[in-house]
């Protein structure tokens, strides 16, 4: 892409002698990275400017050194290095006999400017590779690591570990996992160290939204750098989104439940597993809403809704001395929302309803998320 703006000769001159204002100089800096004609213009200006004698002196000295070293190095030691670097960047030629492409290429390379120099050492390794015959798989001797290597080593399959790693998605590679671990470990350590009983209500307040936030950073153009490629594949859309959601839940549910178990219980407070159904319902609600407004906005809306619904009554609750954290009021508020078969039944119904709606909206994730 060519930028519309270019460095004028006057700007080049003042850039070269250092008199261009800083802001303009930054623009020129950035522009020169991409624009060869302007870079040439600025170089010319620098050669004509006040620095000219110094530049000329450096150039002469450099050339003298290079010439001396050239003579000192035995001729046989030099070309292989050149050849090697050339080979590294070379594309394999389509040189199978009779391929029209190969004939064209040969002609073009030969005729192209500067091709003469390139042709000598470079064509030899290309043909040594097997001259475009299928693929040189054998020389790839480097040790294999990562999921793909697991697949290769497994022989027939992608390998269970590889598949799990790939289903994980961006959430489990990024800051979400770190935040989750910090919250869980922090909560347990704080409660154990201080004996403060209010940690469990706080954790239960956060627990249902944490998996939902994991979903928000798993899919869509804000979260997934490969979103555009991913969407164009048969796995893209709801299927991959559900796979990544499952991965997020697999990690967060045991961690958060375990943390809840390790925290000291408050008398009459909700149990450590009481958040599971609400968590599932909120996650499905975020997915369903996400089919309309995108995963990120949907998660924001659902998480805010939950925190307000549970937190606001606790904050506004009439109490004695206003505490720094109204954990008792929060525990009461959580009991209302979470405890008892009626409340849990409602959450289960909500989860089922959202799942049904999501099934109806399944194709809406097929396209590129634009929101």
């Amino acid at each position, binding site marked *: *892409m060519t930028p519309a703006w270019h460095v004028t000769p006057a700007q080049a001159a003042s850039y070269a002698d250092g008199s261009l204002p800083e802001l303009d100089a930054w623009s020129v800096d950035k522009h020169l990275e991409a624009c060869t004609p302007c870079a040439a213009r600025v170089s010319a200006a620098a050669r004509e400017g006040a620095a000219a004698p110094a530049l000329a002196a450096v150039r002469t000295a450099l050339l003298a050194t290079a010439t001396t070293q050239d003579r000192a190095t035995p001729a046989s030691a030099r070309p292989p290095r050149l050849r090697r670097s050339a080979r590294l960047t070379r*594309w*394999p030629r389509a040189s199978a006999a009779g391929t029209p492409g190969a004939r064209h290429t040969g002609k073009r390379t030969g005729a192209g400017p500067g091709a003469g120099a390139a042709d000598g050492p470079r064509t030899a390794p290309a043909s040594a590779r097997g001259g475009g015959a299928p*693929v040189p798989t054998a020389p790839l001797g480097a040790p*294999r*690591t990562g999921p793909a290597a697991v697949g290769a080593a*497994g022989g027939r399959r992608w390998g269970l570990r590889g598949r799990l790693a790939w289903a994980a998605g961006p959430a489990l590679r990024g800051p979400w996992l770190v935040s989750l671990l910090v919250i869980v470990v922090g909560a347990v350590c704080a409660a154990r160290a201080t004996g403060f009983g209010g940690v469990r209500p706080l954790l239960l307040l956060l627990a249902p939204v944490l998996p939902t936030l994991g979903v928000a950073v798993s899919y869509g153009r804000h979260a997934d*750098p*490969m979103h555009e490629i991913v969407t164009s594949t048969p796995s893209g859309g709801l299927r991959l989104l559900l796979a990544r959601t499952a991965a997020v839940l697999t990690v967060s549910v045991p961690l958060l439940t375990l943390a809840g178990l390790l925290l000291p219980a408050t008398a009459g407070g909700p149990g450590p597993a009481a958040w599971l159904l609400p968590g599932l319902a909120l996650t499905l609600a975020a997915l369903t809403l996400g089919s309309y407004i995108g995963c990120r906005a949907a998660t924001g809306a659902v998480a805010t809704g939950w925190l307000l619904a549970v937190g606001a009554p606790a904050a506004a609750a009439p109490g004695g001395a206003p505490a720094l954290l109204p954990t008792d009021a929060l525990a009461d508020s959580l009991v209302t929302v979470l405890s008892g078969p009626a409340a849990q039944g409602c959450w289960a119904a909500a989860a089922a309803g959202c799942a049904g709606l999501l099934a109806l909206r399944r194709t809406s994730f097929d396209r590129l998320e634009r929101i």
Partner: protein
Amino acid sequence: MTTTVSVGGLTVRHRRTTALDAVDLDFATGVHGLLGPNGAGKTSLIRVLATIAAPTAGRVELLGHDMAGHAGRTAVRRRLGYLPQEFGFYPGFTVREFVGYVAWLKEMSGAAAAATVERAVARVGLADRIDTKVRRLSGGMVRRVGIAQAIVNAPDVLLLDEPTAGLDPEQRVDFRALLRELGTTSTVIVSTHLVEDVAAACTEVTLMESGRVAYRGTPAALAELGEAAEAEDIGDNPIERGYATVLRRHRAGAAAGTVAGTEVSR
């Protein structure tokens, strides 16, 4: 030749701007160049063909499937390769993992995939870098990794949006050779700014302007148009002159209120 990609009355609007205006196009096996200035609608067309953008109106058929249906889309996506204009990657991915991940997303079987991934990476000349982290590669190499992921499933329809951006001249020559090779068996649609890419690699050129098709023909026919318009001092070679001539005529035609038709000169 059988038509593999066909669109009719294709219209795409983004809010109030019209990116594509009732476009009718058919493509068969071969390399098709999509030329045009910025904002002509090339990327919009490629995205619709890649099944990731929904058209505002019109019919899209790929490999005999209608893209309006979910089942057809999924079937076509298995046989599709797509290089977006811009794409990201996960920070820890090596070239092998990146291309392997896309192979997995394209539902390739694990048994075939490991070798296929190596083959795709070798075809873009990165065999030596296959276990390098993608983030350590230069811009041109990342572009080639993008091409490798697009061709990993040996697609029947290959869509490349600005594939030569960031490639140096020598790499572009190699890339064109790869394009010609791919075009013998697949329908390859390449959007580009660079007229010389079209001249060197494409069997057919489609010139777009303001969301409409301004010209369709062979690169040679476009060059002939340029030769005929030699009096006009534009462009450095016949095909560039042809490009500029067609654009001028198309703009003049659009300004005069005539229906911008498809000029076929084959």
